[in-house]
């Protein structure tokens, strides 16, 4: 809650600071707010505990270690993304403050989604997360694909919000409660109407499946990811996905846990479809951002395994570790991508040709993040996949076999970038333009990945 208040206050400050002529201190202001919130969250997580907030509004919020740890992941991602923004937001002028403000508002929504105990809070969180993003996706107003992305995201998002709300209403009708603990006890006591509850759960599954872009509700993702500004795409692929999965896991592992026999079948089907379809489609992409879009869909498939294994101890830690490694690797990849694609206006794989000679550090960072996303040992991504797959193996061996095959397929398209950077003879004369902000983010991200690689257990065992 303290983090939420800090982020909200920072958003207001940034909005007003955006009105002044001097916009150079907007980014430091946003960074300070996020850093402060991260510090408070880590302090509460590692030592002090959430304090008085927990008892004051216990029927709405519950600041468990789970909520605090995921808040920390979202704040780290936001910190790195805002760190990159000095570069990615160069083309914005007097709307810069509004853009930072909206990113921070969106982060407030994510923080609500980690700690909810009441479906009202979940719904509000999802809306606060999404509505600023509809605007941010189209923040380059003269860009046609940006407008298409914003409109597509908005229309599809509004439609699935309706489905999600209908599902929540049916669950309320079946169990007479919005509180996830009461819902769970109503289900396990048999004080509910089964047909209504099951319809409600399926509709909520559709709504959340859309937010985390799981197949078959993924159709919006490639177009929206490609059309949005790079930084916003990075935000959607990391913070939104982390928030979506944390809320998904919390709702299904607490609220709907007694009905696991019912919902595990469609979720398993979704996971299998998501992994296979996304990886097979990603092979044929020639554009980096589109490839990352399909890669993020495929990671949603792996993350669904954690939800399937929600009654296995350790699945929470696996979800946390995977979200963190995936987010950091994706942000690093975007940082390196922006330096080559934005100045030259070319996002294809060929743009990376010979990058290892022009910018050895950035090329190495991009290579490490690709290896981590593919899950090659000994990178952090390998441990993420290892924790997830072992958690789900006992219950769904066939799904894990499928997941391992899919990870092998994914190596193919992740390596396309590495081959272009290191082993391609024909070179282009593209300039690589960096900035101090990018270098800082890259170094911080690398340190974080190194930390996760060396002591993976420290994060895994947090919750």
């Amino acid at each position, binding site marked *: 809650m303290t983090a939420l208040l800090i982020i*909200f206050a920072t958003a207001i400050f940034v*909005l007003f600071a955006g009105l002044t*002529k001097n916009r150079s201190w907007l980014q430091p202001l946003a960074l300070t707010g996020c850093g402060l919130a991260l510090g408070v969250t880590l302090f509460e997580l590692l030592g002090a505990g959430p304090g008085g907030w927990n008892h004051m*509004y216990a*029927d*709405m*919020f519950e600041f468990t270690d789970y909520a605090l740890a995921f808040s920390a992941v979202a704040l780290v991602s936001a910190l790195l993304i805002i760190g990159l923004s000095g570069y990615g937001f160069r083309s*914005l*002028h*007097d*709307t810069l403050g*509004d*853009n930072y*403000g*909206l990113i921070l*508002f*969106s982060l*407030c*929504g994510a923080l*609500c989604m980690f700690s909810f105990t*009441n479906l*009202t*809070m979940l719904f*509000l*969180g999802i*809306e*606060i997360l999404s*509505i*600023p993003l*509809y*605007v941010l996706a*189209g*923040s380059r*107003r003269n860009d046609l694909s940006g407008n298409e992305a914003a409109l597509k995201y908005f229309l599809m998002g509004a439609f699935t919000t309706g489905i999600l709300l209908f599902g929540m209403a049916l669950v309320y009708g*079946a169990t*007479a409660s919005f509180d996830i603990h009461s819902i769970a006890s109503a289900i396990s006591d048999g*004080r*509910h*109407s*089964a*047909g*209504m509850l*099951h*319809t409600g759960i399926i509709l909520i599954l559709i709504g959340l499946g859309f937010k985390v872009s799981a197949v078959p509700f993924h159709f919006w993702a490639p177009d929206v990811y490609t059309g949005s500004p790079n930084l916003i795409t990075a935000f959607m692929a990391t913070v939104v996905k982390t928030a979506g999965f944390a809320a998904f896991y919390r709702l299904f592992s607490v609220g709907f846990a007694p009905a696991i026999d019912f919902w595990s079948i469609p979720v398993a089907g979704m996971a299998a479809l998501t992994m296979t379809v996304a990886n097979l489609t990603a092979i044929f992409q020639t554009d980096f951002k589109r490839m990352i879009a399909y890669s993020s869909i495929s990671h949603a498939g792996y993350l669904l395994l954690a939800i399937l294994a929600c009654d296995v101890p350790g699945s929470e830690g696996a979800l946390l570790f995977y979200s963190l490694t995936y987010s950091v690797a994706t942000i690093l990849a975007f940082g390196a991508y922006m330096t080559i694609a934005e100045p030259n206006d070319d996002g294809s794989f060929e743009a990376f040709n010979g990058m290892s000679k022009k910018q050895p550090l950035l090329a190495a960072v991009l290579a490490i993040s690709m290896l981590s996303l593919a899950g090659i040992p000994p990178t952090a991504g390998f441990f993420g996949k290892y924790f997830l797959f072992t958690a789900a193996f006992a219950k769904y061996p066939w799904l894990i076999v499928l997941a391992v095959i899919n990870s092998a397929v994914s190596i193919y398209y992740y390596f396309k970038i590495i081959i272009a950077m290191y082993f391609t003879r024909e070179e282009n004369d593209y300039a690589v333009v960096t900035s101090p902000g990018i270098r800082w983010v890259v170094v911080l991200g690398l340190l974080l990945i190194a930390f996760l690689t060396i002591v993976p257990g420290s994060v895994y065992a947090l919750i």
Partner: protein
Amino acid sequence: MTLYIFLTLAIVSVITALLMVFSRNPVHSVLFLILTFFAIAGQYVLLNAQFLAVVHIIVYAGAIMVLFLFVLMMLNLNSETEPQKSTMWKIMAAIAAGSLLLTLTGALRGSVQLATPVQSNPRVGLVENLGKVLFTDFVVPFEIAGILFLAAMVGAVLVGKKDLKL
């Protein structure tokens, strides 16, 4: 008596909703939609939610419908400009929506009726009680909704603003 009122309102709302979808003229569609909203507001009154019924009429049938009509007039839409979808699309959409309807009715038909909690207080749907709940049990969501509206307002202003080089 209540059953007859319910049935009348339900039939009216379904028929007007269908007429709204099928009418060629967009202005007629909007007018039928207003009728649908009134029928639904009647259902709210039957459920002892008077405040919700009034807000529903003021916000939806009032404000949002006026917005719809403004947009229709500004774009000058009429039956000639309506885009013609191919028959293929129409059949596919009908099959998709029809199977959703079948699944939902099939799933909900078998559901048991729970013992409805008897409302001891007949004034439960009035503003006074709603306000009490909103400022006691639901005070956190009420405040958080403020963030949502602020974010939506900033977003709306940003959409309409030109990015000037200062």
